């Protein structure tokens, strides 16, 4: 009990330091708070409207796709729904490269319309950023909205059929209310995610009309070493993220986990061909870029520079350590949140704080606090590990809490009557019950860390290059064959590391 309190309390302090403490550190360094310039405000405006547009497009397109999934059973449906969860662990820079292969100047789309004498399309700029955001968030929106569809009791659809509802009646009486319930929450989540976009904007944006706040922080720090500006932008970013996080609490989104997505509501309304078309389009939009990575990557393997292998090794180590650290942070935090009768919710909320925080601000803050004493190059990887673990924490916590509450409800009394306490309780009662969600959280952390192109860019240096950074630099140098091969390597490693750790939590689990 006291052990739980102490270790949980330490995690709370660490998280407050990482999210708020680093913000203060950056703020104190800011010598003159003369206010932001025109270009900075342009970045703030761009961040907000591109996020709103990305979220709106994702949700609008997700509605017909989710409806098609909800009422059609077909071969490969389960696999496709699993694939809808994949963008979450897909390295951003890999997806961007895949999109370039399809929508870039020499991509598939440009080649196809070139047959009709049309000009090639251009992916760099604000529309490329939105395209990439839709690529990442259309699957998320689809899953959230599909969940809403499946939460409607099957009896209601049967009743509608017995009353001879037409498609329009079905839409008005059943589907419209459910969309009103589900879509605002999905929109807010995606809006929030898109306001913290960095890697997409780094690769596809830049320039006055396509710079997000995060990218502006990076530029202020890396190019101008203007800490005041970085600090002010960091404060704006935190206000935007925090404000949206609080706002999104008002929308009770659908429960994203638990309930099975494999159920199909049997319905006879609507056009099969229309549903098939939506599913095909969505699948093509998501899968073709990844297939291009596979094909072009294999083609370019011989072009890989030797330096890619040490970078890959570094990334694997960063991912594994980060996953371990996430577990070491989330477990005491969750146990503390669970054991406190009052204040448990507040402790849990601190675990979600890093959603609103910016990894670049954390990195900048840690740099400011330490660079007088320690060589930044030495700290690059440890800082990356720490920041990645903090950024993964909300997802790990979200996965862990329900299992922990369940274990406590089912076996807390029995443990109490047998006087199983302290370490023995953790070892024999709690851990075996939460192995699966804990491993899932660790797997997520490893995959996110593996593909992360965020805080590491602040310290970009050949000695501490990670695989995503090496890939980005190959793209910058227009060594596209090598870049595709590196992307294939990164994709393979990310998926493999996720699968291995997640699987570790599943084997030999009883009841």
């Amino acid at each position, binding site marked *: 009990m006291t052990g739980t309190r102490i270790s949980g309390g330490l995690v709370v302090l660490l998280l407050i330091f990482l999210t708020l403490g680093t913000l203060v550190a950056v703020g104190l360094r800011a010598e003159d708070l003369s206010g932001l310039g025109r270009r900075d405000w342009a970045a703030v405006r761009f961040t907000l409207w591109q996020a709103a547009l990305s979220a709106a497009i994702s949700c609008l397109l997700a509605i017909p796709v989710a409806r098609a999934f909800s009422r059609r059973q077909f071969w490969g449906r389960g696999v496709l729904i699993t694939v809808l969860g994949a963008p979450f662990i897909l390295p951003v820079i890999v997806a961007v490269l895949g999109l370039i292969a399809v929508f870039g100047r020499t991509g598939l789309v440009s080649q196809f319309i070139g047959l009709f004498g049309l000009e090639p399309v251009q992916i760099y700029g604000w529309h490329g950023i939105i395209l990439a955001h839709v690529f990442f968030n259309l699957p998320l929106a689809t899953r959230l909205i599909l969940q809403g569809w499946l939460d409607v009791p099957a009896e209601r659809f049967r009743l509608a059929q017995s009353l001879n509802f037409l498609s329009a009646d079905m839409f008005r009486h059943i589907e419209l209310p459910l969309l009103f319930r589900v879509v605002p929450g999905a929109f807010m989540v995606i809006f929030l995610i898109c306001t913290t976009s960095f890697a997409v904007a780094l690769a596809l944006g830049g320039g006055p009309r396509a710079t997000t706040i995060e990218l502006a922080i990076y530029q202020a720090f890396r190019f101008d070493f203007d800490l005041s500006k970085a600090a002010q932008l960091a404060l704006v970013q935190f206000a935007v993220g925090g404000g949206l996080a609080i706002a999104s609490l008002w929308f009770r989104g659908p429960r994203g986990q638990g309930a099975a997505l494999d159920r199909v509501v049997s319905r006879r309304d609507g056009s099969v061909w229309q549903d098939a078309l939506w599913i095909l389009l969505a699948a093509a939009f998501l899968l073709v870029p990844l297939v291009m990575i596979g094909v072009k990557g294999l083609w370019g393997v011989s072009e890989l520079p030797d330096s890619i292998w040490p970078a890959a090794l570094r990334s694997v180590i960063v991912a594994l350590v980060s996953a371990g650290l996430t577990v070491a942070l989330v477990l005491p935090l969750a146990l503390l949140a669970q054991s406190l009768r009052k204040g448990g919710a507040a402790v849990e909320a601190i675990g979600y704080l890093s959603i609103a925080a910016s990894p670049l601000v954390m990195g900048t803050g840690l740099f400011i606090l330490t660079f007088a004493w320690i060589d930044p190059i030495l700290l690059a990887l440890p800082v990356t590990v720490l920041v990645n673990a903090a950024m993964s924490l909300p997802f790990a916590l979200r996965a862990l809490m329900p299992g922990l509450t369940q274990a406590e409800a*089912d076996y807390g*009394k*029995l443990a*109490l*009557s*047998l006087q199983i306490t302290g370490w023995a309780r953790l070892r*024999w009662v709690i851990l*075996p019950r939460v192995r699966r969600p804990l491993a899932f959280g660790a797997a997520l952390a490893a995959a996110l860390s593996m593909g992360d192109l965020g805080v590491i860019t602040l310290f970009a240096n050949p000695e501490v290059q990670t695989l995503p950074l090496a890939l980005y630099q190959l793209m910058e140098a227009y060594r596209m064959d090598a870049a595709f091969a590196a992307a294939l390597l990164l994709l393979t490693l990310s998926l493999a590391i996720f699968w291995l750790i997640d699987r570790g939590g599943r084997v030999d689990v*009883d009841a």
Partner: protein
Amino acid sequence: MLTLDNVTLTQGAFSLVANLSVDAGARVAVIGPSGAGKSTLLAGIAGYLRPTSGTLSIEGREVTSLEPGQRPLSILFQDSNLFPHLTVFQNVALGLRPNLRLTDAEVKAVEAALDRVGLAGYGNRKPAALSGGQQSRVALARTLLRERPLLLLDEPFAALGPALKVEMLDLVAQLGDERGTTILMVSHDPDDARHLCDQAILVADGRADAPVATHELLDNPPDVLSAYLGKK
């Protein structure tokens, strides 16, 4: 050996006053309408619910403020008596050593307890590989090892079939007699009460009364009970 002196148990708007004592070695049924507070009474005795007033003592020692695990009693719940991820042996061994670090003598004691309930050789299985009756036997084996003078049964055999339930009640009676264990059993089945318990406590109208002979209570039930039992 068990005395409740003006013990008041409160759960939300519901409250129950218990004023009773139970003799050592007695087997007492706890009977009453649904929602009258039978399980609340057991939760109070076991220590999951602290009384808002009154004192509770077991074997002459006051236990009102002791933690559940420190009280001289064992309890079997309706379900979740076994950890599904631990083997039968480990589940029983938890009764001796919560950290599962057993000496050779303790290992022998666990095996002897399993033998006593007819489950010798089942130690390496997981609960899911056992029948409902066998799972109940594992839980009983653990109470044997703990050697506490009071055993509380909160309908642990409710999910078993009639024949199996009688078999388990007989086993409880047998093990109880061997050790002189005092037994308190919540039941909604009058036949179970008659079978195992010579005495019964009536829980109704926010009160738990002193034990009386089971057959008298069931043969001439007061109004609250006869409405629940549903026969004349």
